[in-house]
């Protein structure tokens, strides 16, 4: 099985998902697994959840220069997931042109295998792609 590029990426059989946590005390949702709430400091209240796979584009940049060996340009996006979590990732399937990328556009998680810089084999990663009906 392909290794995940980040520990928040989990697999159950052929199904992939993003690990999250919900604080039982304040209700805040976090990306990744954790024990203590960074918002309200509650201990022992955190429940493991699977994060939503749809959301909207909050902010982005088009990266034209990156570390050596990384293919550019790509869109580095901050997405507000529909469950209230906030996730960073690469937005694909959209022209990397700031004149046409729209704040608030609806996106969803898709799964890809790709070879990261510094590696000689593919890893499992998530990317954002436009939801159906969004102009690509």
């Amino acid at each position, binding site marked *: 099985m392909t290794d995940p590029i980040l520990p928040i990426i989990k697999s159950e059989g052929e199904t992939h998902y993003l690990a999250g946590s919900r604080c039982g005390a304040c209700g805040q949702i976090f990306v990744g697994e954790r024990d203590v709430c960074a*918002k309200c400091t509650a201990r022992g209240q955190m429940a493991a959840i699977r994060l939503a796979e749809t959301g909207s584009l909050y*902010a982005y940049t088009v990266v*034209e220069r990156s570390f050596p060996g990384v293919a550019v340009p790509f869109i580095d996006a901050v997405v507000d997931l529909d469950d209230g979590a906030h996730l960073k990732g690469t937005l694909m399937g959209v022209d990397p042109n700031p004149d046409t990328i729209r704040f608030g556009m609806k996106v969803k998680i898709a799964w890809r295998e790709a070879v990261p810089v510094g590696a000689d084999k593919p890893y499992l990663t998530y990317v954002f792609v436009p939801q159906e009906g969004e102009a690509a």
Partner: protein
Amino acid sequence: MSHVYVVGIDMIRFGRYPDRTVPSLAAEAALMALDDAGLTLKDMQALYCGNLGQASGMVGQRMLAEIGQTAIPVTNVANACATGATAFRGAWMSIKAGVYDTVLAVGVEQMGKGLLGGGGGVSPEGLVGSYTMPAMFAHIGMEHSQKYGTTFAQFAQVSVKNHHHSTLNPKSMYRKETPLEEVMGSEMIAYPNTKLMCSVNVDGSAAAVLMSEKKVKQLGLMDRAVRIRASEMSSNPYEERQAAMPDFSGATRVAAKRVYEQAGLGAEDINLVELHDCFATAELVHYENLGLCADGEAGRLIDDGTTALGGRVPVNVSGGLLSKGHPLGATGIANIYEVATHLRGKAGARQVEGARIGMTHVVGGGPGMGTACAIHILEKV
């Protein structure tokens, strides 16, 4: 409670000194600050030394090995881009607490060129967005665009302004005018930050001699003293999006609120500001974070010249990190040098006329790390 004063302060010209060592750069600024105060190392009771690149390398002790091993306590400090200001604040606190009367603070850095970070190993860069500094600060600008419609040209104008200011500063790395077309047309790094909208990685050092009010009066140094009206710091408060986009605004707003309270002043009392323009996008956002204008008005401030030399509250008249340069550990004390020089009326061609109160701000951090912010308010005596 009595105040703490800066009685000596200086910086080397920022630039590239590949043949020098970190301790030798630190030593040069330290001796310059001592000369400015008219004191010697034997007068110093403690040293706070800020450096990032050799954070485990006891830079303070190695500096003393070059200029005098007087056995004073040395505290070596590392705190991202707030490193120098954290060392300065450590010195301030030690005097404020009544432990010492005379303390030396030094900030120093020797840097390579190009993007920070990107060390070896398997990296998610490109697969899961970007982890570069320009991308991180691009997000902050794009968040402002999303909320208020701020334009690429408005961000670029910050760089035009700061590069212009640097032509008046002999200690700046670059001293070259960059018209708007040139800034916008230079290599795009991470939209909307072009190469000329990214701070310059340089080598540099800066140092300050801090002194208790009692000692300043005893030695008769009040004629060269600058009062530290307030010193504050913060780390990042909990922010919703901090795992996706590191927070620099929340931390700055917290520190700004604290520093105005401590000083008993408001933003309207500030005559000049040296703030953390690590990228052009950051400067506009910090206008609002520091209360220089209401939320959403930063674009107007850069458009109407409020923050240019000659405006109501000039920002980064030194040339800022964008042109003077950003040697990480030195930046915090270099900012204080700039403001102190204006309050002393010794800033030459770039002097902010009638400056009585000035503010310095640094904020640093990185993806998955957190934020350190330090703000000082200085006052003409």
